[in-house]
């Protein structure tokens, strides 16, 4: 029996390693669905607002967001799902809050990616990986790595991130938000109606969108 013991131990360890690895992998993939990076998102480089969905959609969702704000991150995936489910028109505007150290840099990274037609993949990546970069001392390195992951022209991305045009674009969105009374993030409008803060929780937000879709249908 002693002769067979090492075989049994090694086989057991191999089985436990493969099993726990597979379990962990499934859990990780379920928690972070792989990014879908469309080749063309209908976004034109340099366009001021970032729009997803048809222009004649029954409901337009306009978000003022901050990439470093955790509630915005929690809403990102539900908004993506609702956009597909109800064919919403989603507009994203930058509203980086001064209290978040890397928020403006992240907004610039998204704008710089947008200049190469990849705003939405960068938007999804920044929100998905928010815990990884928001506490980092060197977020810029991470953003450059994201640009590489999205197969952007890295030199152009770095140049665009520092360009005055990109900075101005972010400030323009901020000014627009401030003008209409945006103070915090996320601030979301459904057909120009502001969504109350209690409905901005991921579990309540779908109900708010459903109500907007229902009230939009009779008139359309």
């Amino acid at each position, binding site marked *: 029996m002693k002769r067979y013991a090492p075989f049994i131990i*090694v086989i057991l360890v191999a089985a436990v390693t493969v099993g726990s690895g597979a379990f962990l*992998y499934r859990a*990780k993939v379920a928690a972070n669905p792989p990014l879908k990076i469309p080749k063309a998102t209908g976004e034109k480089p340099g366009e001021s607002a970032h729009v997803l969905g048809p222009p004649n959609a029954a409901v337009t969702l306009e978000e003022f967001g901050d990439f470093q704000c955790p509630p915005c991150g929690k809403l990102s995936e539900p908004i993506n799902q609702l956009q597909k489910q109800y064919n919403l028109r989603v507009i994203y505007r930058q509203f980086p809050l001064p209290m978040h150290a890397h928020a403006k840099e992240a907004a610039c990274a998204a704008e710089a990616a947008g200049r190469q037609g990849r705003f939405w993949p960068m938007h999804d990546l920044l929100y998905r990986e928010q815990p990884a970069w928001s506490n980092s001392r060197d977020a810029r390195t991470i953003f450059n790595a994201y640009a590489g992951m999205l197969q952007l022209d890295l030199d152009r991305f770095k140049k665009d991130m520092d360009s005055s045009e990109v900075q101005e674009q972010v400030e323009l969105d901020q000014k627009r938000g401030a003008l209409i009374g945006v103070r915090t993030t996320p601030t979301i409008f459904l057909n120009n109606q502001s969504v109350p803060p209690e409905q901005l929780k991921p579990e309540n937000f779908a109900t708010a969108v459903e109500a907007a879709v229902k009230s939009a249908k009779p008139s359309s």
Partner: protein
Amino acid sequence: MKKNQKAGSTRQRSRWEIIFYSGAALIALVGLGEATYLTVISLSGETAVCGNSADCFKVLGSSYAKVGGIPVASLGALAYFIVFTFATFAAFDYGRVRKFFTWTVLAMFAVTLWLLFVQAFRLHAFCQYCLFSAALVFLLTGLVVARPSTAQSNSNL
């Protein structure tokens, strides 16, 4: 009388060898767990974070973290598993595997030195997971070097 002394020393040697190889198997098991975790992180596309530093991302997201599309962490897991296997068999008195154990650990030590060089001089960033793994390999190498001479002479069996 001489026979009894010889038998006693063999028993003692055998006990030391069991402790030595069991310790090595345990260290390899810890390394296997860590390397498996890093493999999963790499395959699932998640970003590994080391506290507040971006260094893990820099190292694990670099071109050095994959060889021919295969994550280096998975090769590490395989190496730790091989070391674990050899150490387990050696602890159960399978004398022939001892020299394979030694060579595998020495090969891992060489690869670890290369990876440390890459982190220090090419990437200018250190990943804590990699440093922990390097510490385990150093420990295994230390065990091999400091192994009692009786066990070494037995490895020729």
